[in-house]
Each structure stands twice: as structure tokens, then as C-alpha cells.
């Protein structure tokens, strides 16, 4: 399996302009990202694909990346449950996987 990569330059569109590097934590592990990119993109670039755990214990991650499917929800300290695809990275953010209580009926499977 190949690790995800950040392109310096898009083969069709040219170079990417990114914000300054910042650090945040995910499940207690430091992750380096660029300010302003989405949490979803930053975590994917760091090779982290599982963003939440369903009530059946299944791993879930970025699916639509445009705010519709809610599969990328994470818990951001001080902000509650957020969609990783729509939440800009900020330095020092403390982020955890969202975990539905096993067997709960509050959310989907």
C-alpha cells in the first residue's frame, strides 16, 4: 500500500499554495498540517483514514468530503462533533475519533 502524498504541484493545474505548517493532535499523536486546509485532508495526508468508529465498531472515513455524508465526523476539543471535511485546521487543535456507543440507536450503523 502506498502512503498518501501531498503534491507540490498538480500535474494539470500547477503549483499548490499552502498555508504555513502547523501542528495539531489526533488521538494524542501530533500531526503536521498546513493552516487552512481541512482536517480531513490533513489527516489523509498523514495516512490516517479512520476518522470515526460506528456503533458496530466499523471504521469509517472520508467519503464525500463535501459535508453531506457525515462519515468523517470527529470530536474537536472545545467545539464538539465536527465534520473533518469542512473544518479548517488550526494550530494546537485537539482532535479525537468520534465513537458511537456500541449498540446505541442514536446514530446510524
Amino acid at each position, binding site marked *: 500500500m502506498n502512503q498518501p502524498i*501531498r503534491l507540490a504541484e498538480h500535474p494539470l493545474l500547477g503549483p499548490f499554495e499552502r498555508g504555513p505548517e502547523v501542528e495539531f493532535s489526533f488521538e494524542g499523536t501530533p500531526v503536521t498540517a498546513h493552516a*487552512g486546509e481541512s482536517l480531513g*485532508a490533513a489527516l489523509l495526508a498523514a495516512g490516517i483514514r479512520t476518522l470515526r468508529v460506528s456503533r458496530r465498531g466499523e471504521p*469509517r*472515513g472520508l*467519503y464525500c468530503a463535501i459535508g453531506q455524508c457525515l462519515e468523517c465526523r470527529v470530536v474537536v476539543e472545545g467545539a464538539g462533533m465536527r465534520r473533518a471535511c469542512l473544518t*479548517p485546521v488550526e494550530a494546537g487543535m485537539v482532535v479525537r475519533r468520534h465513537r458511537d456507543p456500541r449498540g446505541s440507536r442514536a446514530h446510524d450503523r
Partner: protein
Amino acid sequence: MTGDARLDVDLAVVGAGPAGLAAATAGARLGLTTVVFDEGMQPGGRLPGQVHHGDGRRWHSGRDDAERLTAAAGEAGVGIVTGTTVWGLEPAWDLFLDGAADGPRFCGARVVVLATGATEVPAPLPGWTLPGVMTPGGLQTMVNVHGVVPGGRALVAGLGPLGLEVAQVLSATGVDVVGVHAAWSGALGALPTPGGSLHELAHTVGRAAPTWLARWGSAIARRRALSTLAARLAPCRIAGVELRLDEVALELRGGDRVESAVIAPISGDGTPRRDAAREVDVDVVCLGAGLQPLIELTGSTGCGLIDVLGLSGPVPLHGDRQQTTVPGLYVAGGATGVEGSAVCERQGTVAGLAAAAYLRTPGATASAVAVARDELERARRAAPVRFDRHVIEGRREMQRRWEGACPTTM
């Protein structure tokens, strides 16, 4: 635009894609106080993720269109509020908002344009919830907006213009695209493509001239007579990607991420040959069955909804001024039927002008609306990609149904 929990404007627009930005700009230029809300991080809707051939061989980014529309809205005095979800809407008009801690919570408006866009139609194969399985739109966002390439070996399952575009972009970034396949949904005639079948797909994609899609489309179209005999279709390899209409994706497998896909040939009777299935290693799967209008917020107002062939799903019943059955509620863009961004933009202009006319704004004349409507029709006929080949007839049918339902409404 922060500080106050409540905001009051003449025109509130939901969705900062091409339709919403154009609607807001049209209203604001006529002097309406105007605000646009979008839950995305940047204005532009899906535009920044789009890559296509412009004139000749040069690649064109939707990012440029997003910047142009955003700049025009700003110059017209539109307030653009991103990172904010409109979660509720009550007539005459109150918008309920969820966004930044210091952002507004309510917005009062005299007229509303909903430009909520479209959403992906799922193609739920076994294993489709595994991390690493993403929609075409999601992959466009990751690769084209964020520059994050999610893996090294990709399968594209589900046939449609967006999936084909993603296949080519992934391939260009160095990803090994192992194949483009239909996603098996139980019957060949019901293969999830934007138009519903391989035959429809050939028409849809075949209209994509002058982009590279035309080459794919014509390659499929040449074989369209065989679309119910997919077993006979030869693989074709275009732009470095293998298009396999003779095989379908049956299942996705993996532990904490997608690791493989099960692919089977189609037999003479149109069913997959599970005995001849093969498993291919992949770490990315692009899975989607096209787009459908996003109408929850519109429907919550009690406005009439209708399903007309050609518009990709149920949409608000609306007239040719983009008006709905609820006074003061206008709609534009993908939320009214899935079409390309140039069409959405012009629908937005019509909606913005019509909304201004509803408020009896000087300058929002019937002739101004008519001019904008003509431009919309021209853009529709010139559209390089049609997501549904019946869209022109669908629009005509919508107008007929509107006149039948609301003969005197403006």
C-alpha cells in the same frame, strides 16, 4: 460579518456555488442588501475541485471561475458567510444558522434564493463504507483542491462523467488506475450511471465534446448497440486508463481500510460470472452513481416538489423565473436539476433578478429577466457535458407542469 447573533437583509442566498454567487451578485447590483451562506470552507461550491479542458489543449480549473464569481459578488457588496450551515428555514423569512462561535445564529430576509446544489448518488456495493472508498466529488476535492493523493492503486467503480474525470486526474498524478468498471447493482439494465444504463451513459458522455470525455464517450457509443451484451465489449484503454464495460465491480474488501476489489466478467445473460471473479489489490476506490439535486431545505418550506425525467431526481416545482410555489422563495443551480456550472451560474442570475423583481426593486424589469433567461437557454444548449440526456425536454416539461399548477403566479 461577525459579532451580531442576528442579521437582517433583503436577500438571503443559501449556497455559494456558481448559482448562489450569481444570484446574490444580481440582487446586490440592484441595491438589495444581500448575504450568501455556505457550509464549505471557501466560496465556489464544487467549482474549485473541477478540472477540465478549456479552449484547445489548456487545462482549466474551476478555481478560476470560483475566484471570478467571488470577486464579482464582493464588488457588488454581497456578504459571503462560509463555514455556516443553514439548518432551518421558515417562510417570510427566518434562516437558522450554525457556524463560527462568533458568527450569526439567525438571519431575517425578505426574499430567499436556495442554491443548495447536488449530492452524490451512492452505489452501495458490499464494503462501500471502508475508509479509502470515496465519491468522485470527494476525490476531486482531495486531489484538486487540497493536493492530497490518497493512495497508489485505484479502482473507479460506477460509470459517469465525474468518475471518468477522476480516473484521468488520478492517473496523471501517478496513481495506478487498475480499471474503470460499472458497480454491480443487481441488473445490467439498472447499472447505476447518471442516466441509468450503459446506453444512457454513451449518450451522456458522448455529448462531452470537445473534452477528452468525448473520446471515451465515442469509444463507448460506437459499441452502444452491444450495451445489453456487455460480455462482448472489448476493453478500451484511453488516456492511460482501462475502461472495462465487460466487467463489473461486485464487492470491496478490507480491514480498517479498503484493500481489494472483486471484479467479475458479465456473462451472456447479463449477470456477473462469480465463478470467474478476480480480486485486485487497491488502496483507493472511487465509487459513485452520479449526482442528484439536494432538496431537503427546500422541501422543509412546504414548497411543491416534482420528479421530472431529465432533472436527475425530485426537484422543487418551479417556473422560468426560478420561482417556487411558495411566495418569495426562489431556486437555482443543481438543486433544480443537475447541469454544468455555466448553466447554474445563469440560472442564478435569473433567480437573483426575479427575487429583486418580487421586492419591486427598481431596475429588476421583466426585460432584464428575459435577457438573463435567454442567456441561460444559450448556455444550456452549448453545455459541454449533459449529466442527463433528457435535460432539455425535462426543462420544457417542468415549465409545462408549472403553468398547469400555477397559471397566474409571477
